[in-house]
């Protein structure tokens, strides 16, 4: 099955987030959070789409955000136990986007680890993807690094 543009963009955003996460400057930590939040929002929208619900609002110009996507999925009985962490990530994203906040290393670690673990779980259990097949080998290895408690390899 072909991968939707939403899903492809979500995966690329997460990889981009990890690139910035590694570089670890003040500016890179901001972009790590912004891209991770974008990846999470896109993957939730992909699930909304697969539930046969439009991702567009009534104006048909703008699409639903993270909170609306979680609300729609809740109504469709799709369980997202990580939702509180994802809302915190989105809140951090808003502080960066609107108030030029700079996340510290620990805060960035917290959000990136939560985002990657959520993505890994949701991609396989809720979107039915075989991650080994879908992701490139290097991307799979990078995402997999977050699956187990550190240090793990």
């Amino acid at each position, binding site marked *: 099955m072909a991968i939707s543009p939403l899903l492809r963009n979500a995966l690329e955003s997460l990889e981009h987030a990890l690139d910035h996460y590694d570089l*670890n400057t003040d500016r890179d930590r901001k972009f790590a959070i912004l891209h991770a939040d974008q990846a999470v929002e896109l993957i939730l929208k992909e699930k909304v789409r697969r539930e046969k619900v439009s991702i567009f609002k009534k104006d048909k110009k703008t699409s639903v955000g993270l909170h609306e996507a979680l609300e729609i999925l809740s109504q469709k009985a799709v369980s997202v136990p990580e939702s509180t962490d994802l809302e915190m990530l989105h809140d951090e994203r808003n502080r960066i986007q609107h108030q030029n906040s700079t996340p510290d290393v620990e805060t960035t670690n917290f959000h990136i680890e939560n985002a990657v673990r959520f993505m890994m779980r949701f991609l396989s259990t809720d979107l039915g993807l075989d991650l080994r097949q879908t992701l490139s080998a290097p991307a799979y290895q990078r995402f997999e690094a977050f699956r187990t408690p550190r240090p793990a390899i």
Partner: protein
Amino acid sequence: MSMKEDDVARLVREAIDLTKGVQEEYRLAAFQEVLRHLMASELGEVRRPMERVQPLERGAGESIGEFLRKVSSKAHTDISLAMAYYFLKHRNIESFTVSDLDALYSEARHPKTNLNLAVIGNIKKGFMIDTGEKRESMKLFAISRLGEDHVETTLLKPPSVGE
């Protein structure tokens, strides 16, 4: 001591297998480094010890904290690579686990990151190698010559005037 052709072929295959995930531009260098390591091991050359890394006693040389202050990058892959370099050059330890790196982060009181990811990043660049061996069921890694060069030429700040 010499090796049989079969043994050489086996080690070459093993080295190919261990470096197939390395980025193409670094793969040859990583392959050479891994093969050198495997052949040295096969021939029974003395390797540096693989015991758990112990914190250095105070006053026994440059501390990891002092060493990291000379590193010009904040990137997690670079910091973990510098730590691997520190193991090799300051403690004579060639191979290490991710747990050893974790312990060194604690010793340095450096903010921690996902070290699995940092090691994977360094292997991709050919700066670290997977030795193919384990200690306490954890993989043992080593800094490659390419990695040593990167630390020495790129990461270590030149001393300022007057230092």
